[in-house]
C-alpha cells in the first residue's frame, strides 16, 4: 500500500490537490462571490440596491426551504421528487384556509406537507421501496390532491385575513420570509451537527448496512427525514400562496430539480453520507443570483430570453455541477487510496 502511495506522489502535485480540495469544498462559495462581484461591476447601483437584494433573498426563500429538506434526504442517500407537487398542494390548502387566519393556514399547509412526507418515509423505510419511485408516485398523488382541493382552478386567498402578512411583513429591515428561512437553516444546521439525529442521517447515507449493523434506528431516521422534507415543502407552499395571493394546483412544477441542483452545487454528495446545510444555502443563493443577473442582462437588451429557457438553464446547471462533482470526487478518491 505504502509503495503505491509513494509512486503516485509525483503525478499529482501538492497544490493541485489543494486546489481541487478547495474547489470541491468551497467552489460554490467562490462562484457566488465571483458572480456577485460581476453583478456589482456590470449592473452597479440597480443591482446593489437594497430593494433588489432583499427581493432576491425573499424570492428564493421557498426554494431555500425545499432545498433544506432535500439536503437531509440526499444525505441519507435518497431523493424526494415530490416536493414541487407538495408545494402546489399546500399552497392550495393554505389559500383555502387563509380565511381562518395566518396561523391556521400556515399550520394547515405544514401539516399537510408533513403528512405526505410521513407517507413517503413510511413507504421507503418500512416497505423498502426505492425513494425515487415512492416520491414520483406521491408527486402524482399530490398533484391529484391539489386538483381536487382546488376544483381544477387557482384558489384566491381571503384578502380580509392577515394571511398575506406572511409575505409582506418586515422584521426591522428584513422581510419575514427571509427571517423564517434563516431560522430554518439555523435549526437545520444544529440538527445536523449537534444532535444524534444528524449523526444518524450521515451514517445511513455513508453506509446503510453498517449503520444497520451498528443498531442505529434506520427506519425512524428515514421517516423523520422525509417528513421534514414534506413539512418544509408545506411551509414553502404557504409562502408561495402568500406571495401570489393564490394557490395554484400547477405551481411548483420542476422545483424538485432546482432543489436538487442547489443541494448538489453546494457540494453535498448525491450518493449520501456527506454534506452541509450551509453549502445548500450557498447553492440556493448562487442559482438565485444567476437568474437575477440574467434578468438584468435581459433588461439591458443583450439578448431575448424566454422564461422557457430558464428550465433549460437550470437543467444545464445541474448537469454541469454533477459532472464537476463526479470528476472532483473521483480525483479525490484516487488521491487518497
Amino acid at each position, binding site marked *: 500500500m505504502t509503495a503505491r502511495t509513494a509512486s503516485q506522489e509525483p503525478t499529482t502535485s501538492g497544490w493541485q490537490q489543494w486546489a481541487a480540495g478547495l474547489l470541491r469544498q468551497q467552489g460554490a462559495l467562490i462562484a457566488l462571490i465571483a458572480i456577485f462581484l460581476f453583478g456589482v461591476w456590470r449592473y452597479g447601483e440597480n443591482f446593489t440596491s437594497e430593494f433588489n437584494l432583499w427581493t432576491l433573498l425573499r424570492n428564493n426563500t421557498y426554494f431555500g426551504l425545499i432545498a433544506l429538506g432535500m439536503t437531509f434526504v440526499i444525505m441519507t442517500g435518497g431523493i424526494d421528487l415530490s416536493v414541487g407537487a407538495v408545494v402546489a398542494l399546500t399552497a392550495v390548502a393554505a389559500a383555502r384556509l387563509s380565511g381562518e387566519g395566518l396561523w391556521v393556514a400556515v399550520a394547515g399547509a405544514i401539516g399537510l406537507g408533513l403528512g405526505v412526507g410521513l407517507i413517503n418515509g413510511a413507504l421507503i423505510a418500512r416497505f423498502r421501496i*426505492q425513494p425515487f419511485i415512492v416520491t414520483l408516485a406521491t408527486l402524482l398523488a399530490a398533484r391529484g390532491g391539489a386538483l381536487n382541493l382546488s376544483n381544477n382552478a387557482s384558489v384566491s386567498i381571503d384578502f380580509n385575513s392577515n394571511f398575506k402578512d406572511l409575505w409582506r411583513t418586515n422584521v426591522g429591515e428584513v422581510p419575514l420570509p427571509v427571517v423564517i428561512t434563516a431560522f430554518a437553516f439555523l435549526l437545520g444546521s444544529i440538527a445536523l451537527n449537534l444532535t444524534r439525529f444528524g449523526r444518524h442521517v450521515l451514517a445511513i447515507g455513508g453506509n446503510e448496512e453498517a449503520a444497520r449493523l451498528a443498531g442505529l434506528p434506520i427506519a425512524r431516521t428515514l421517516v423523520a427525514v422525509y417528513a421534514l422534507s414534506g413539512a418544509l415543502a408545506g411551509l414553502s407552499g404557504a409562502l408561495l400562496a402568500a406571495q401570489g395571493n393564490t394557490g395554484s394546483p400547477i405551481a411548483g412544477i420542476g422545483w424538485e430539480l432546482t432543489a436538487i441542483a442547489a443541494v448538489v452545487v453546494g457540494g453535498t454528495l448525491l450518493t449520501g453520507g456527506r454534506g452541509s446545510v450551509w453549502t445548500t444555502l450557498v447553492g440556493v443563493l448562487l442559482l438565485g443570483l444567476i437568474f437575477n443577473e440574467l434578468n438584468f442582462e435581459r433588461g439591458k437588451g443583450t439578448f431575448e430570453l424566454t422564461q422557457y429557457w430558464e428550465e433549460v438553464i437550470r437543467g*444545464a446547471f445541474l448537469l454541469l455541477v454533477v459532472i464537476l462533482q463526479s470528476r472532483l470526487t473521483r480525483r479525490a478518491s484516487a488521491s487518497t487510496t
Partner: protein
Amino acid sequence: MANVGQTEARPARPAADRVVLPRWLRAAGQTHGAVIALLLLVLFNAIFTTNYLAWSTLRVNLDQVATIVIVGIGMTLVIATGGIDLSVGALMAIAGSLAPLIFDSDWGPLDRPWVGIPLAIVLPILLTGFLGLFNGFLVTYFRIQPIIATLVLYLGGRGIAKALSDGILLDFNNPSFEYLGKGRPLGIPVQVILMAILLLIAAWMMRSTVFGRYILATGGNEPAARLAGVPVSRVKLAVYAISGLLAGLAGLIWAARISAADPYRAGEFMELDAIAAAAVGGTALTGGRATIIGTLLGAVIIQQVRFTLISHNVSDGTTRIVIAAAIILAVLIQRQREQ
C-alpha cells in the same frame, strides 16, 4: 447456480425493520397477480361500464395503451441493465414540438410534403435518440446515477420543448403526418401495429440475441459481467439510446393523435406509467430480470385502471391519486417477489 449464490450473498435483514405483506397477497403476486388484476378489471367493466365490449371501446383502449407500451419497451430495457430513464416524457414533448416545425416549414425543400413529412418523422426520433445516447453517456462515462442523469432532461427537456413551440399549444392540420396517430389500415390503428412490431422485435431480442443476454448480465451483476467480457458501457449506451428513440416515436404518435404540439401535457407522467408498466409486468427494478410481454400486460392494466376511473366520472385528481396508490402497490408486490 448463479442465482443460488446471489441469494446467499445477501445479508439477512432483521424482520422488525420491514413490513411483510399477507401471504395470500404475496402468493397472488408471485403467481399470476397481474393477469388476475387485469381479469378483474375487465370483468368489472364488462358488467358496470356501458358499451365496454364494443369494438370502438377496444380500439380507444388500444390507441391509448400503445404509447405507454412503446415507451415501456425502452424503459424495460433500461431497467433491465439496472438503470432508469426519467426523461422519456420530456423527450416525447420534444419530438412532438419539433415535428410541426419541420413539416410546417416553408424553407427550401421542406415545403414539399414528400421531403417534409419523412424528415418530420425521422429527425425528431433521431434527436431524441441522440438525447437518449447523451443520458447513457452521463451514466457510463461520468458515472452519474441514472436518476440524476436523466433528471437533467426530465426538466430541461420540457424547457426545450416549450422553447421550440414558444410555450403554447401549437395546432396543426396535416393529414399525412396525423396518419401516424389516426390512420387505420385494415381497421387497426397505426400505433397499435407499430406497438405490435416493436413488441415482437424486443421480445425476440431479449430471448434470442447476444445483446439481450448482455443487457440482463449487466443488470444482474455488473462487475461480474464486466469480468466476463460483456461490453457493459456500450450496452448501457445502447439501451438509453433505444429508450430515447422509442420515446421520440411515442411523442410523434401522441402529437399526431391530438393534431397539436403540447409541450406541457405531451408525455406528462409518462415516465411513471412506463416504470409502473415494467414493474407490474414483472421486470425487477433492481435489474437483471426483464419481460417484454409483462410490460405489455402492465401497460394494459394501468391503462384499464385509468379507463375504468374516467368512464365512471371519477375526477382527474382522484384518478391520479388512485393510479399512484396502484403503482406503489404493484412495486410493493414486485419487491416482495425479489426478496
